[in-house]
Structures are given as C-alpha cells and as structure tokens.
C-alpha cells in the first residue's frame, strides 16, 4: 500500500550558517542557483491532461536531482496504477501521499500531494498524467476552473545525501528516491517565477434539471409503454 507517511515531514529546518560541515562537492554556488528555472505547463484538452514539468540550470555539467512537491486540488486526481505502469514503461517517478478514489466527484474528494522525482540525464523534465474529476452541476452550466499552483522545487547534487547549507535557502528532509526508504536533505529553491495553470472542466447545467427530468421520464415511460404493448400483443400467455 502506498500510504506514504513521509511527505513534507520536515524533520528539521536549517538556515544558512547553522552548520559548519563541509565535504566539498555537496554545495551549490549562488550563481548556479540563480540560473535555476522551473516551468510547468498543462497539455491536451478535456478531462485527461498531462502536467509537463521542466527544470533547467546552467552549467548543465553538474548533475543534480530535483524533487517537485506538488499539492494538487480536489478537482483533479492522479491514477496510482497508471503511474505504476508509466514508471515501468518510461521510468516516470511519481509518488502520491495517499490512495486516491479514482471515481468520486470533486466536492467529496480531497486535495493530495504528488512527489515528482527528476533525475539526470538532462533535461530534467516529466509529463505526468492528471485527470479532471466530475464537478457538481452549476446553475449556469459552462465550465469549472480548477487552478493548479506551481510545485515546490527541491534540489540536491547527485550522489549527495546531504546538501551543504551555505546559502540563504532552506534545507528540508524528503525521501531520497521514489523507493521512499530513506530521507535526504534537499535544498528548497525560493523565488522562482512559475505561473499557475488552470483546467476548464465542463459541468452540467442545473437550471435544466426540471426539463431534463421531465423529458427523460417521459421518454422512458413512452418507450416502456411501446414495448409493453408489443409484448402484450405478441406474447404467448
């Protein structure tokens, strides 16, 4: 069971200068950190979309691992079984913080977190399938907008379980890999300019409730009567 008790259990938060430990290659230069850019887009239309994440940095020669901590609203869901298949087929690495109901409508579902691991080789990118949930009918029909905020970006140099604090960024503990067996220190990158994305999901028009109920019931009764008459006439009683 993927009950992931880990996420964002920020075990300790260390600020710049709190530790004097230094082991060489596990620190980030400020200029390098300034070069980090993250983007998030949503592709496809309708209820079945892809969230496309990309993390870029200069120079690319330095291999880093990225972890996106993404809080997603109740209006969408990710399918853990589809993610498991994609992991096998394409090496997509996504963990969910809870088992999600794949069928329930938005208003009785809850928000959830996804952890997207991006590993070298470059470019650090992933397309994660996300599905829209059915929403409650609204009085004007149309579309329901589901806003998806950008994820938090965590970085650590490849082959380093701990990151040297030496910069005014926060260190957080989060799973090292998708296997979720150990925690590593990751550097949380602030100040990234990533825009939100939004999904437009069609919703039913509740102002039509009465005509829809009336016509549906009428057609259903007429069809039943039509069939009843035929069976009554032709049946062998």
């Amino acid at each position, binding site marked *: 069971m993927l009950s992931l008790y880990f996420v964002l259990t920020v075990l300790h938060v260390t600020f710049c200068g709190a530790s004097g430990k230094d082991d060489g290659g596990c620190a980030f230069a400020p200029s390098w950190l300034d070069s980090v850019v993250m983007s998030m887009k949503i592709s496809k239309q309708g209820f079945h979309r892809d969230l496309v994440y990309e993390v870029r940095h200069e120079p690319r020669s330095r291999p880093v691992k990225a972890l996106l901590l993404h809080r997603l609203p109740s209006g969408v869901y990710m399918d853990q079984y589809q993610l498991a298949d994609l992991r096998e087929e394409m090496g997509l690495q996504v963990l969910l913080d809870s088992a999600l109901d794949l069928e329930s409508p938005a208003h009785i579902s809850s928000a959830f977190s996804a952890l997207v691991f991006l590993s070298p080789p470059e470019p650090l990118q992933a397309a994660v399938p996300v599905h829209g949930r059915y929403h409650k009918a609204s009085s004007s029909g149309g579309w329901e907008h589901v806003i998806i905020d950008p994820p938090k970006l965590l970085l650590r140099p490849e082959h380093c379980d701990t990151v040297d604090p030496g910069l005014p960024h926060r260190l957080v503990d989060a799973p090292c890999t998708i296997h979720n067996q150990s925690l590593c220190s990751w550097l949380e990158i602030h100040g990234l300019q990533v825009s939100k994305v939004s999904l437009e999901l069609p919703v039913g028009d509740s102002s039509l409730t009465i005509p829809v109920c009336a016509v549906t019931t009428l*057609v259903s009764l007429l069809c039943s009567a039509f069939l009843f008459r035929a069976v009554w006439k032709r049946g062998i009683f």
Partner: protein
Amino acid sequence: MLPVQLMTFRNLHSVAFIIRVILLGFGIYQDKNMVVKYTDIDYHVFTDASRLVTQGESPYNRSTYRYTPLLAWMLSPNIYLTFHFGKLLFVICDVLSGVLIYHILTLRGLSCDAACHFTALWLLNPLPIGVSTRGNAEALLAILVLSTLLCLQLKRHFTAACLYGLSVHMKIYTVIYALPIALFISNQKELKNRYRGVSRLFLTLFHKDLVLFAVVAGVVFLGLFLTFYCMYGWDFLQETYLYHLTRRDIRHNFSPYFYMFYLTAESEWNFVLGLVTFLPQVILLLLTSLAFYEDLPLCCFLNTALFVSFNKVCTSQYFLWYLCLLPLVLPHLRLTIKQGIGLLLLWFIGQGLWLAPAYYLEFEGRNSFVFIWFAGLLFLIINSVVMVQIINNYIPKTFVNQKKKRK
C-alpha cells in the same frame, strides 16, 4: 454433403480464431509503440488483482476491482506465465461461444449451413472480437449463459443448474433469467392438461426438475458466496454485488438516465427518480418472462436487451450480454435482410451519435452534456424500436412446429 458442412464449421471457427490471434499480436505491438493503448484498462485491473491473490492478499485491495475473486484466480498464469494469458483465455472462450451458438441453432432445427451463417454474426462481429482481444472478460459470461441454455434445451437440468449458479456468481445481472428458466422447466404439457387452478400452480412450483434446478443452482451460488465471504469478508460482498446493485454513475455513459442522475445527485428527488426508472424495467422484465418463456433464447435476449437499455448505468461492454444471444433469435424472425441491415445500421448510428459528443466532452473539454443526454434518449428509442421489431416479426415456435407437422 457432410464433409463440406464440417469444413464450413471448421473454417469459420478457424478464421475467427486466427483473426483474434492476429489482433492479440497487433495489440502487443500497439501497446509497445503507440500512445493510445490497445489493452483495456480493465485487463490491467484483473492482472493487478491476480498479482494480489498470488501474494495471498485480497483482490479487492486493487481499487476498482469489482468482480468475483474466481476471475483473479483464473488469471494467475498472467503473473506466472505471461501477461497475455488472460487475453488468450478470453479469445478461446469467445470462439467456444460460437461453437455453443452453432449447437443451439442446430438443435433448434436449423441446417448446418444456416447455423454457420448465424454463428458468423457472433464470430466475425467486430464488437466481440474487439472486446475479447482487448482483454475484457465478457466472453466468460457468454460461454456460461450459452451453455446453460444448451443444457436446458438438452434437458440436462443438473448441469444447467451448476452453470447457472456460476453465471449468477460471476455477474449478478443473470439473475433476470431465473423466472423464464423456472417457467421453462416447469412448463409440462401433462400438468397443463390434467390440472387446473391452484393445484396446477402448486404442482408447477414443486415440479421435481424445478426443485432440482433451484436447489443445485442455489447451492453453487451460495457455496461460492460463503467461501469468498469467509475469505474476503465485506469487501467481496460490497464490490462484487452491492456496488453493481446500487451503482449510479454520474459520469457520462450510454444510459438515458445519466444526465438526470448527474443533475439530481444528492437531491431529495434522487430516490423517487430511482424508483420511477426502476419500475418500468421490472414490469417489462416480468411481462417478457411470462410472455416468451417457452422460447428461452428469445426470452433471455429480450430480458437482457431490456435490462441493459433501461439500466441506470450502461457501457458498451453491456451490449455483449445480449449480442451473444442475438444469433439464436434471428433465424426465428420474419425480417428480410434489408430490414435486418436497416435495424443494425440504426443501432450503430445510435451509438455513433452518442460517441461523438462523448468524445468532445472527455477529450476536447467541450460542454456537450445536453447532446450526450439527447443521444442517450435517442439510443433508448432506437433500442425500443429494434426490440419491438423483433417482437412483432417473431415467429412463435408453436407456429413453426405446426407448419412442420402439416408438411
């Protein structure tokens, strides 16, 4: 004459099998190389559940697994041998359903040649071919229902009862065949001639064949039910039966009621509307059972088509439940080929008109709920017209027998 006919039978079934095997191969290729996958999502659900049972866990730990644990067990070679085992099993069942249809048709008095033609309607029909090669388990049920009908026709009540008990265990909807089967078994001419009124009813109800059938089918069903209930508890009951009995999906599906239930979800009217839609279904099922039980395949076909058309949830797999019985009904209709093709086209157009707005809603994000609703209602009307045409053009078996006697 006979070898040629045997060849036809053999050829037909071989061709049907080869087509399916080629499609299995194509499916493997498409799954590996294309974005849109050939294998149905349900097949992955079955395989996941199978993996769980081989690890000694409950298959219901796989969410959306809503079938009997038997299926998960049956597909355990998917884990031990090859992922494609289940599909091959479904394909074999699909072709064996053709064999059963052929035998029932010849028992119903058709020549081998004619029986082959009607069997081809199942074996070469793209719908069952697609469904079984994509990994849906509907063929298992087709084989159970058809073999129950064959055994009943051969008066092998014990075997028929075992198969029927298993059918109801596998898919609860087959319970709608209980009344026509009971009436069919207890329909004894000597009782009709000798007794009247209450005594006839009493003797009919306690006819030894009927009692045997009811007891055996009941024991098979309850035996499996209790075994799995002991093993998997409430999950088994909930997912295999209660879910299907109470299912009311607000997401778009072929049911004429889907939009109504979506708009009234959680309102106090929901219960009343549920009842209003449930009653016509029950009344029609009772009436057709009483009207046509003497011709069991026709009765089961009509019952299934009525049940599916008026159901609160309907997906395209449900169509196979009655399509496997259609070749048994067609030879007894007065329809010309032109009329038959016309009705078939109408049915496909009905589906097409639903599929187009459903595609735009799901994959393009257009708000086409009203069109889907209209298309659902139109599909119900088309289904009713097709059923009425079948009923009106049906030649009763007694009439056929009389004609034969006169000759």
